[in-house]
């Protein structure tokens, strides 16, 4: 299994020894170097688009750094960073949905297409099916099976209950099965 954000070792500058990084300029560089790779990979699994993933991770980094000095446990940056990425991703999708609803409220003609997530590079069935899941279902699957978070940790990132995580994962899995079956039929 690839290194998820929970480790991020390969992004850490050799010998940095960062456990309680500060955010003075030097610390900012090290913090970025340590976390950005894992952040981009997580964002890529959520979005399916490499450059969008980089933007998303950088945006999440900026937002987390702003709050960094207020973190009671600075080494919890990773958890905040992960949460920010997931939230930014889902809020982006929410924007599309809101725009469609907005048009409908304002009486415009019906909307038949909302552009999908940015280009989904690979074409494997499962990957394609994953791209059709609601954002939170997809995020729950990525957090559980890529980041290897527990249900409780996943719930903390998604801001929901453990029961809701179970439901998201179960429904996401079931939807994937059905869609793959549908394509095979």
């Amino acid at each position, binding site marked *: 299994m*690839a290194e998820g954000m929970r480790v991020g070792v390969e992004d850490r500058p050799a010998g940095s020894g960062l456990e309680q990084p500060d955010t003075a300029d030097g610390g900012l560089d090290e913090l970025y170097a340590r976390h950005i790779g894992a952040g981009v990979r997580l964002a*890529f699994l959520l979005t399916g688009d490499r450059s969008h993933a980089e933007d998303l991770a*950088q945006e999440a980094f900026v937002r987390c750094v702003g709050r960094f000095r*207020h973190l009671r446990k600075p080494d919890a940056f990773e958890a905040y960073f992960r949460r920010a990425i997931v939230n930014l991703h889902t809020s982006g999708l929410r924007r599309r949905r809101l725009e469609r*609803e907005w048009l409908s409220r304002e009486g415009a003609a019906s909307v038949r297409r909302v*552009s999908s997530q940015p*280009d989904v590079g690979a074409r494997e069935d499962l990957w394609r099916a994953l791209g059709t899941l609601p954002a939170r279902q997809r995020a729950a699957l990525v957090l559980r099976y890529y980041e290897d978070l527990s249900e409780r940790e996943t719930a903390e990132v998604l801001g929901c209950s453990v029961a809701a995580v179970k439901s998201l994962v179960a429904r996401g899995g079931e939807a994937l099965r059905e869609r793959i079956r549908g394509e095979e039929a």
Partner: protein
Amino acid sequence: MNDVEQDLRELFDRKASSVGGVAPKLPEQVRNRSRRRQVGIALVGGLAALAVLAGSAGVLRAVDAGRGRQPTPADDPWVGYEVFERTAVVQGFTITSPSDWYMVDQWSWARPIAADVPRDVRTTPVLMLSNTDRGLTTSPCFDAAFAVGSEEAIMTIAADDAYVWKHQGQADALPQAPTRFDSEAPEGTGVCGTGIYVPFATEDLPFVAHFLFGEDVSEEDRTILIRAFETMGAQATVDPTPIGARRDHPSGAYVIAGGENAAGPWTLELRPQTEPAYVANVQLELSPTEGSGVVAGGPFTVRDGRPIEQGGGNPVFGAVVKAADAVELRLEEGTPPISAQVVPLPPSMPFDFDLFFASNDADVQATAVALDADGVPIAPSTPVTEELSHTTFLDEVDHLPPGQRWAPDVTQEGNRVVMPITFPDGATAELVYPTELRLEGLNVYPDTYGVLDENSSSCGWPVHASRHDPRGGWLRGNQPIGGLEGRIGYVELWEGTQSNEPYNFLIGRSGSWNIIVPCRSAALAGDTASWAELISAAESRDGLLVFEDAPRLDMHLPEEGATIRFSGDDVIVDVSSGSARCDAGHPDMGARDGVVQWCVEPSGGVYVYANAFEPRREDFLQGLASGLEIRNYRPGEN
């Protein structure tokens, strides 16, 4: 799930690996934004802390009255009042107890405090039930000096984070609520100090019930408390994550009553605050109220017997002068009146009125009348439903007819069109674009984001304005459910249509525009009232709208920018001023996925985002991306 799980694990690993190396060097624009963000957040934190101290001093003086002292029989406010059995739901826990016991919903007060407690010793109080009034700002789980009085009986239900920490979150081993209280259980010492601890689980979450009994507590009170626990329904709705300083409820809330209407269970809570009073059935917020007779509780009135926050017509509630011996709801002629339950305020709230509530199952118009001991109305009464006949201002203003579009006037310069615009933050500019783009043929709207008290986004996310009548598309019914005189004039609160759930809408008017502020239906009542009071805007010379900041209300968020939205049948174009997006990311000029976005005027942070919903509009997006210019940009003063 095993089959898909394994496939997903392999897929995720492969895909993550395909991302390849990521440059570890901090890009300059990210560094600059990070620095600005750090400075901004630091300032916000200081201001927020000041606001809490200044705003809550009076409240805390009142609600802290019960803390650290021994209650006496003279404190009992229920002498002369009818005690009833109260069943109420607090954060998913359904508890039945006599109404002269004090139940405090502590969750929103406790969560920020819990964030400062080390996780391995942390519990977060959800509620406290006691036979004396301990005020709204204390818990044995937070206060090391908390001492039980000799005749007191106190139960705290708390989310047990310490258990999660020690047992990796596995609550399976705990008994599921409802569970028994072991009367032989010895006192122990734990995260809430000494006391009797009964751990239990519900919804996979571990909780603990903590009991304190004074040495002279009556057997009756002891039995009442244990019974309340053993009959407790538990379907926890709490999110166990502490929330740091995000919310600033300076206190818990007294649980006054509970019941059920067509929409489900309701709980009437009393939460003091210094903000404008506002009535809603889930949260009755009161400030000292002058006058006599029945008062509706603040600038919002409950119309039509309908609670503002949960819908339905039940219950009717309010405040009444202490001189009243009873309150009844008078319905239409020929219908028997409904007796209301009168509830005294707890001793820690030294205000000169009582509360009342009554079921109004028929959901009909009712007038609450205060009666003396002889059943005679004691003062001119204010009908709870006095605003029923109110005609919404939406009936009295001109709207743009359906299907008709509006855009600012334009001029032609050769084969290009010039459209002067004023952004919602007051910035001005000229949009210059090829004639064939025909942006002036689209509908144009101001659109922005607002935040109250630096951190509350329960309303105003985002704020729209429309020249069309918002009824039908946005608003349900033909009548608002509340109203409030604000800076902008009368602001109405409407229920949202089903497709807008969970939002209600504040509707105000400025110039030719209807201002539309979505508020989550579960938004704090005080937040909704504050938005209604503070929202303000003025029409600009080009016919657009400039939103004004106010103390506590920031209408211009750099992350989002202040936006002019162009919309047609199948396209949306947002042009935002002062957007931090100009600092980040790469331009996306490829129209194939239906979206283009780029920074069109970096010095003003003018950012364009366009979403075409139809493939045939790809040409439009390309034309926009290659032909749109911003000229004569001037930043706003807001």
